[in-house]
């Protein structure tokens, strides 16, 4: 088992380096000189040269690469062009907020989605199945910002149950929950739609397997068959897919944070884009890379926990 864990860990580290390398190149292959882009084309040559030196762009590429990698690993991610504060500090300030939102949405999505998918599979081709399938299809057709806007319209503006603009700095649990509620519901319902579908198709596949026929021939009750024989097997693809969908979730969190005006990575990256904050942009990409690799690793390890066949690979 430990061989498996080590292998996955090693793989994650390699992927991390690979993606960071790509990040490095993407940011430097911007068409147009970044310094010129930042200062505008009216700037003088010396100003541009100065800025380039500050950004370390005048040094040869391999040196830049080593500096970049070293910086990432030691926590020196540069300094924001706009605020002057260290990039990593800005990111770490808002990271908990995004993580909180993502985590709660994921839990909400799983808690709703998995049982709904199982139920839909068991009642295949009957009314509950049709309704669930249609509803889940509708759910994932909403672009995250559309549903966010609609939620805002109905629950915050018309009904006034939730604040329109959340401060994100709530001190009491109640305040934090109120701030979290609408954004989490927004993302959570979208996640639930995806998870329902996967849970359903996975359970249907498991129900058709030979070992379920064996269990029925043993005279086991249907509920026990679902719970003990089917669930673990059907969760295997669900876990894999949840890891994949986390990417979608993070993407959608950007939109949700904007609509609900929540502090988080989303607002940070949009701000960086609009203000051409070059170092901040680079730092954003690095943090996203870390998150994605960590999620993939977690998915792989969970997979190994559920499926005994995996340990022997």
């Amino acid at each position: 088992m430990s061989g498996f864990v080590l292998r996955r860990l090693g793989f994650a580290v390699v992927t991390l380096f690979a993606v960071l390398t790509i990040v490095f190149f993407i940011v430097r292959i911007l068409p147009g000189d970044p310094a010129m882009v930042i200062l505008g084309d009216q700037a003088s040559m010396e100003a541009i040269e100065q800025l380039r030196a500050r950004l370390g762009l005048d040094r040869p590429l391999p040196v830049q690469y080593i500096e970049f990698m070293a910086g990432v690993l030691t926590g020196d991610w540069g300094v924001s062009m706009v605020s002057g504060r260290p990039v990593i500090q800005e990111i770490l300030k808002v990271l908990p907020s995004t993580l909180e939102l993502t985590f709660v949405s994921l839990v909400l999505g799983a808690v709703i989605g998995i049982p709904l998918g199982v139920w839909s599979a068991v009642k295949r081709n009957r009314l509950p199945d049709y309704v669930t399938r249609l509803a889940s299809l509708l759910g994932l057709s909403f672009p995250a910002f559309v549903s966010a806007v609609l939620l805002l319209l109905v629950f915050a503006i018309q009904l006034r149950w939730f604040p329109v603009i959340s401060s994100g700095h709530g001190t009491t649990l109640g305040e934090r929950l109120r701030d979290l509620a609408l954004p989490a519901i927004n993302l959570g319902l979208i996640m639930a739609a995806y998870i329902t579908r996967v849970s359903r198709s996975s359970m249907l596949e498991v129900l058709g397997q030979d070992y379920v026929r064996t269990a029925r021939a043993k005279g086991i009750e249907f509920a026990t068959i679902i719970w003990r024989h089917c669930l673990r097997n059907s969760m295997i693809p669900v876990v894999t897919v949840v890891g994949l969908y986390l990417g979608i979730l993070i993407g959608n969190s950007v939109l949700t944070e904007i609509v609900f005006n929540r502090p988080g990575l989303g607002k940070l990256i949009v701000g960086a884009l609009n203000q051409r904050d070059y170092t901040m942009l680079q730092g954003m990409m690095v943090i996203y890379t870390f998150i994605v690799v960590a999620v993939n690793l977690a998915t792989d390890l969970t997979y190994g926990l559920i499926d005994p066949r995996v340990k022997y690979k």
Partner: protein
Amino acid sequence: MSTPVDATMPQPAASPVLRVAGLRTSFRVGGEWKTVVDDVSFDIGARETVAVVGESGSGKSVTALSIMRLVPEANGRIEGRIELEGTDLLALTEERMRDVRGGEIGMIFQEPMTSLNPVLTVGFQVSEALRRHRGLSVADADREALRLFDLVRIPDAARRFAEFPHTFSGGMRQRVMIAIALACRPKLLIADEPTTALDVTIQAQILELIRELQREIGMSVMFITHDMGVVAEIADRVVVMFRGEKVEEAPASQLFAAPGHPYTRQLLTAVPKLGSLRGHDMPRRFPNVDLRRSEGELGVVDASAPEPEDEPDRRGAPILEVGGLTTRFPVAGGLFGRTVGHVHAVEDVSFTLRAGETLALVGESGCGKSTTGRSILRLVEPAAGTVRFEGEDLMSHSKAELRAVRRRLQMIFQDPYGSLNPRKTVGAALREPIVVHGIAEGAAADRRVAELLQRVGLEPEHALRFPHEFSGGQRQRICIARSLALQPSVLVADESVSALDVSIKAQVINLMMELQAEMGLAYLFISHDIAVVERISHRVAVMYLGEIVEIGPRAAVLDNPQHDYTQRLIAAVPVPDPSLRRQRGGLMTDEIKSPVRPLGWAPEPSRLVEVGPEHFVRRVG
């Protein structure tokens, strides 16, 4: 349809354990009800083994599922009466039926590889049945389950109890299934083709096991199979099914000696009996085979036609010479996926094939016979050895040269359902090799396609149809036609008839022998079915763990085997004659060894010793 033949026999004195009366099972397919089992009736007495025999589409499996009421309720319908010791099973509530399933009727299925839940330990799956039906506590159930493991002769039971199914071989998994089915000492065991997916030596062990357990527990057995040899080995009475109906029922000895119904007669003449060609050197075709018959049809059996004669010896000069062929596959493992060992699939194999000759490669799973065929064609790359075909050295050929050679050296594969591109019409598939190799074009090519179709017993119009519109036997004939398109001189037939029904097998074998006589084709016939091999082969080579252990003329090897693996193999083949039913002593639990070896492993030195005219046996030293 013709009327069923019920042999007059004394009814069992005691009331039957199972009575099936007028069973009719239908499925709704696309809005219409289709009857799959039509008015079937039979009894199974106490301590009796009844074999239910039929080919694909006969409805035998559905009969078993109907008895267990495992037919899906949404689009399945069961009518009639099914009585288990007097209780009508069809009238029970689902709850009561669940008590019957596993508690009073045990069932084992065909595919041991997928019938066990991969995420639960085998011990758990057995004790679950015990807890469910006998209300035992977890500890008691586990203890009893362990005892059952010993009963079904799973070696090292205590350690293997907590392991997962994927660490068990097919034969072992089937033993676990038997343990589950017998956990609650049922009155009736339903076995649905339990040994079809197993190697013949493993099959012999499992059959022996079932027989012994039946004696110990005193239960009845309903054994579903298509293999008449297995029927002869174990059945007291036989029920023959065809197209959903019962066409004959008789005690086993009577059925084999004097079959009543035309279908039974057809079935029995198509079944090869190992030993029937004893004393004959040459191959011989199957009698009474209608080339144009399809599955599900009752062909014309001409009882007055004479028994075919031995084929004349038309063999020519050696055309394929294989020397020291070795193929290995790397096994990855360890931390970084390094190679930690090799699968020694083919190890130092040598033989010669003459023009117009059939050499059979026989063996069980993992012996390397399929890989040998593929290595010769270089579909997999051998590690060492020489292959001389029509005087050319295939091993040194480039890809382009190989392509030219491949015209003359063709392969027919096992799976009739996968061998043809489902998206191409049959005509397009047959035309393609002709056009690709520049043999003909346009109308001339299409004429050749039509000729080929006719040669294998199909019609030119069939060219415009898709593979899924044909049956298994027809598809295999189309594949043969495709290989013939390039006018080969050697055909490698890799388990080409293994997936076909018994009577269709005979048809395809006869076709192959006809083509051999007409065109002087040589066959490398790869198969695990020794009885079929006996009829078609001039010479036989037996393989085990990648090596040839015995090779020689067919009569010599099969009638007078010298190597003890060959002897074991032949002894395990079930013979379709109840009077020859063997009493096997001593249950074996030998697994078939796997040819996976660590790095740097070298085989014990051995060589082939001549023990008769052209008859060689591998001896160590």
